[in-house]
């Protein structure tokens, strides 16, 4: 295919970070190594070591009607096995979180297969076959520079907090206090799973990233960081889309579009 994806317009650092997130060829920096079992505990869908529950028999054993699309598309491992579909949901603080909902949606769509994702102003849910979801949560969503323990929360319900001031330790507000700041070690510990059920043992997700690092890797335009108005290329594109959508309904003549 001759088309080469450009991912995202813009000349600023923020735009570049967004492109890096979306581009499947870019390997994001690995910052921490959370054990598989701990990720499973935080997600709270099954106990570590427990078998995956299935909703249908393995595809190979199923007697399905003939369909050439099925031959074209290679199923995910979880789909082959018939695993359930589960979710993980993130909340991103407006204070220079590395990711934010729209960026997440686009990144998921560019990088992963078999995902269903939902974007809301303060949270972003991703649904997928359980086994595949666990693997990608660990390898990409939590272990890399896509995540920050303080500014991003893993929250299944009661997500309120993304637009609030941080607390004194620099953590995003969470009414359910799923994670706490350990003042001795400086690490963030998850004491509850994503919906607020207490965990037997706290899960250590490492140190919050320093402010400079966050400003370096963030994908959020902010007046006290990199403001959106500084990015001329991006503004041109946004304006063009806005005007085309506004005028599009009124059958504009050619010369209107020339000015866009």
């Amino acid at each position: 295919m001759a088309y080469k994806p450009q991912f995202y317009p813009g000349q600023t650092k923020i735009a570049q970070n967004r492109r890096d997130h979306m581009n499947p060829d870019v390997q994001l920096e690995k910052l921490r190594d959370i054990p598989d079992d701990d990720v499973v505990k935080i997600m709270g869908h099954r106990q570590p070591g427990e078998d995956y529950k299935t909703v249908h028999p393995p595809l190979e054993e199923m007697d399905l009607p003939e369909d050439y699309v099925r031959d074209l598309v290679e199923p995910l491992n979880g789909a082959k096995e018939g695993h359930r579909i589960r979710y993980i949901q993130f909340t991103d603080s407006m204070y220079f979180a590395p990711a934010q909902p729209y960026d997440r949606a686009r990144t998921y769509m560019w990088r992963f297969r078999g995902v269903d994702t939902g974007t809301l102003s303060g949270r972003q849910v991703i649904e997928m076959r359980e086994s595949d979801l666990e693997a990608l949560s660990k390898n990409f969503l939590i272990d890399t520079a896509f995540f920050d323990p303080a500014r991003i929360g893993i929250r299944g319900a009661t997500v309120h907090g993304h637009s609030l001031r941080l607390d004194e330790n620099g953590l995003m507000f969470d009414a359910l206090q799923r994670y706490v700041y350990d003042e001795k070690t400086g690490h963030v510990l998850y004491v509850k799973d994503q919906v607020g059920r207490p965990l037997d043992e706290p899960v250590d997700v490492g140190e919050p990233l320093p402010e400079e690092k966050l400003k370096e890797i963030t994908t959020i335009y902010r007046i006290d960081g990199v403001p959106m108005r500084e990015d001329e290329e991006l503004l041109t594109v946004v304006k063009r889309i806005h005007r085309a959508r506004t005028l599009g309904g009124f059958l504009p003549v050619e010369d209107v579009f020339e000015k866009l």
Partner: protein
Amino acid sequence: MFMIEVEIFPHRYLKASTTEKFLNKIYDLKTVERVVIHGQPLPKVITYGPARGLPVNHTERKIIHVKGVPVELTVMAGRFWITLSDDSELDKLDEICKEMFPFGYNLRVGKFLKDRPTVTDYIKYGEDGVFLINEMDRRLIGMVDPRSRMANSVTVVEKEEKEE
């Protein structure tokens, strides 16, 4: 009775211990009449989702002591509305803030609390209700939501007379 109102807006949400220290310090000032603590509510139990009904046990929801009077803190404090009897101690207040909030804060003088029943009160409670509001202690108007029980949301800290 002439009073001025001050809003203190720290740039971070405060821990219960900081709130306690801050309140004790401002209650040392002579001119502080009333303090309203505004912030994010901290629920006792989880109200939504699969874990509904489980206790939250938030470490910042606890009883603090202001001048020896126990006050149940049900919010994570993010803003204080303080009524002062005059502006003679504004500088001292500013100094306390500077010391307590190294991460920054805003201090504004203005009007933040209502001091008489409003149209909303007429709609909500009718004329009888507004009559009751007019009958109650003037110093309590604007401190609390009239729907909530006073015992839960107002604490009187004796000096000459103070609430919060």
